[in-house]
């Protein structure tokens, strides 16, 4: 599924949008070590952890899209780093549980079509 479809269906706010990549799976987690251990490459990562180190974790794991939940403030440094590294940053006022549910349902529906 195209990231742009997830963005419009879940009404996510675009903070940094560089590439409309293909999303096939997702991961939700706020502990960097957990994400590094379990997230798959090119997944969409849902987290409240809007820190510069999240961008570094995304780079290590080849994650191209991050959704920050709970309307968390995203600092200038984080945005700058994401732009440099071409990582899509999205934000929502929903909590992680709700937005994971929405994205999951979208992806399931897409798989059912195939």
């Amino acid at each position: 599924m195209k990231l742009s479809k997830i963005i419009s269906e879940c009404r996510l706010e675009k903070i940094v949008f560089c590439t409309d990549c293909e999303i096939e799976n997702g991961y939700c987690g706020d502990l960097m070590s957990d994400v590094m251990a379990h997230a798959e490459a090119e997944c969409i990562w849902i987290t409240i952890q809007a820190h510069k180190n999240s961008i570094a974790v995304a780079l290590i794991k080849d994650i191209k899209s991050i959704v920050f939940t709970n309307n968390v403030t995203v600092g200038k440094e984080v945005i700058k780093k994401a732009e440099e590294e071409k990582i899509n940053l999205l934000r929502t006022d929903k909590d992680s549980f709700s937005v994971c549910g929405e994205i999951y349902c979208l992806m399931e529906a897409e798989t059912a079509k195939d």
Partner: protein
Amino acid sequence: MSPQLILEQAVQKELNLISITDHNTVQHSILACKLSEDLSIRVIPGVELTSREEVHLLAYFPNIEAILKMKKEIDNYLPGKKNNSKIFGNQLYYDLKGEIIGIDDTLRQVALNLGLDNLVDLVHSIEGIAVPAHIDKDRFSLLSQLGFLDREANFDAVEISKFKWRKEKFQLGNIRRGFPVIAGSDSHGVEDIGLFFMEDSQEEIKDFISLKDFLKRSKKP
């Protein structure tokens, strides 16, 4: 632990310079500073802050005026919920003589709604020193919450646990990834006071200013 009891112990253990850094509260740190005016021991006003990422950050300040500014910010960024004493215990207020004068019913074992880097900037804006606490611990530490230590971060030092200090035979002035290391006793009870302390063989760190200066000189760009 009343500030009066802490100072009594610290003097007995022949410590020269201490700081009381309670979680997201400054009251007792201020009391200890006032008490120390009549003693030879020096006390740096301090607090242990919790960032949005649940990283514990030690903050030290030049004077009571500065830490009172920090108090305002803490109140501003705390969620404003009530403490549950069954889980976190009662947060007692003491006076200068060590008498209990009240109970703080604000929930303080919780994160401030401010990211770590912004919190560091805030501490700096009121002339304080910002030091991520016990970075090697598996809970509430920079490494447990954020995975690794960013060389470009604006910390003045990093605190490692006393266990690591002993094991790796650290000394004041040692550097880790560009940051000077410090350690404290992290005393949560009277019996811990003085069981761990840093030795300043040059006898140059006597107060906040000389500490800040020492860390600044030690830091590797």
